């Protein structure tokens, strides 16, 4: 008895000719989704961790203040002194009335510097702030 080999004659190849197209699509997605850092951060910082955190909805409104391990303060793209914050933020607020200030403060900082920044922000009437923190796992 002879067994017929029941194998279909269909091609057993996965068409790979459109693979580059697919990869290009992925590539484009990542290129578009990537936000290149606009400012260089000159200070080293480690954010605190918290549970009850929220996302800032409107990214365009955010202005950043960094406070590094060594207590240096960076506002937008330059290292500044506490006394300068008020003026800079006041100008910022004139351009962008409902600016949100994201405070990226190193977790080993003292509250003294935080309080000083807050007082400066209050004087500049930029009252919406956000203590930037990571989600606690």
């Amino acid at each position, binding site marked *: 008895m002879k067994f017929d080999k029941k194998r279909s004659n269909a091609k057993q190849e996965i068409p790979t000719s459109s693979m580059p197209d697919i990869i290009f699509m992925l590539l484009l997605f990542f*290129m578009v989704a990537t936000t290149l850092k606009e400012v260089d951060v000159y200070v080293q910082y480690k954010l605190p961790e918290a549970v009850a955190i929220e996302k800032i909805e409107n990214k365009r409104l955010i202005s950043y203040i960094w406070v590094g391990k060594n207590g240096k303060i960076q506002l937008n793209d330059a290292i500044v002194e506490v006394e300068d914050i008020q003026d800079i933020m006041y100008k910022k607020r004139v351009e962008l009335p409902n600016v949100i200030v994201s405070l990226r403060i190193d977790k*080993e900082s003292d509250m003294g510097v935080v309080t000083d920044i807050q007082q400066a922000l209050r004087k500049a009437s930029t009252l919406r702030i956000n203590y930037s923190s990571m989600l606690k796992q």
Partner: protein
Amino acid sequence: MVQIKKKKERDAKIPDAGMSDIVFLLLLFFLVSTTIDVDTGIGMSLPEFQEEQEFVPISKERLVAVNINEHGDVLLNKEIIAIPQISANLIEKIESKINLPSNKKLIVSIKTDRRTNYNLYIQALDQIVAAYAEVQNKYAQQVYGKKLEELTPEEKKIVVKEKVPKIISIAEPEKTK
């Protein structure tokens, strides 16, 4: 006779077999270098700055004062407490005031020393915000049978703005000479 060399027909093809490899490399580069940074944090509103401070009398039962000193000891209404306990302590207090008018809601005041560690402050603040979030969620569940995120904007407004408003006060720093 000079023989004119016949032009050799060349195969004018760009080899594209390695294309997908190149694209893969690009893709990998972007995959690795992408940091989708999310801006997460605890949102707060600072009080307006006033030269002359006016003292508004606030009844004792409305106010919960959270004080953190430079060593990280936490005082909640004059009782020493550990940071992780703040939330549980506040929840009862917030819940007892759900049905009171808005001028009788709880105010949580947080105050620190200049040398207090920032991380501790955030941990304490986190506890307070978490307590409010839990009460809001519980209330939404009880009244509407839904989670807070699933409520309609109007319902959410009632819960968040009227019933369980989050009032956290950052204490005025004491004047330094």
